[in-house]
């Protein structure tokens, strides 16, 4: 038998209706169907979710840590990008 590892999958769980899917971790599985079942068993045992997405990890493209300074530091002194100069009416709950 060839010793082949199952591919890695990233797991996203929606905790309730109206919220977005959040990355919760990763796991190994032979294919997408099994990845969803494994995610159900590993990540939703304590009522964490109502919906599961899985994405094969090789399909995730990440930013390069070497680019961090150029990517993220320039936002440090752009305080005007935060909408903190407005008065939010009391009746607006979820800002």
């Amino acid at each position: 038998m060839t010793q082949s590892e199952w591919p890695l999958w990233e797991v996203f769980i929606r905790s309730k209706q109206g919220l977005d899917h959040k990355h919760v971790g990763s796991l190994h599985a032979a294919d997408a169907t099994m990845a969803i079942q494994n995610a159900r068993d590993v990540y939703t045992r304590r009522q964490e979710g109502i919906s599961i997405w899985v994405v094969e990890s090789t399909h995730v493209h990440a930013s390069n840590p070497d680019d961090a300074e150029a990517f993220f530091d320039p936002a440090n002194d752009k305080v005007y990008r935060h909408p903190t100069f407005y008065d939010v009416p009391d009746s607006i709950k979820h800002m």
Partner: protein
Amino acid sequence: MQVAPSDTSALNAYPPELRQLLFQYVLQLADTSLILGHRLSEWCGHGPVLEQDLAMANIGLDLLGETRSLYQYAAELEGQGRTEDDLAFLRIATQYRNPLLVEQPNGDFADTITRQFLFDNFHYHCLVQLRASADERLAAIAEKAVKEAAYHLKWSSEWIIRLGDGTEESRQRLDKALASLWRYSGELTTPTATEKALQATGLIPDYAALLPKMEAHLAHVFEEATLPVPQGVFMMTGGKEGRHTEHLGYILAELQYMQRTYPGLTW
């Protein structure tokens, strides 16, 4: 954990003989899910991969939850003051009523999957019908358990397909598992005298009516798995009447050790 409030007036409505039959049947269901749940718990920490280790522990715990509801109900039906713990821990092997299939050893992963699939295919379809039982407690227990069993069947079906239509080695192991376990599948739908009497009252499902649905699902899964359905195999029975294979004694020795050694121990 109790599914429905105890209502002794409803129990007293049953004639004594019928109540005794129902006690025997509920005990059989409880023993079945206890023994299979225990078998699955033996995998804990030994699964082939973490994901499946958890999956088997989850299924074992589902079965244990169902077991407790059933033993509680059985204890009430018996009405002799025995508790769910007495029924689980203080009966000997010949008093256990589980079918032979569920006491078979875990073997390799293919053996465990095959045992689980053959059981799930019966368990799920039986619970679907049991939900409509005129016995409200059984119907309520089935209503809760059927969702869990639907997932168990999905899980074991997907694995049969992948092992059957997987690598050369997975196929060989699955063929071997089927060759040793198929002979225990017939007992599930072979009614005992107790089951026949209860089927006649309509309180429990008629297995003849379950068979077409079970066979259709099995045929679908085996086709995807490229497995031939075994034919003409002599079916072993007896577990539901207390005649067990040598394996049950070892299970009970481990399961009951603590209560037998330290009677009444709690923690």
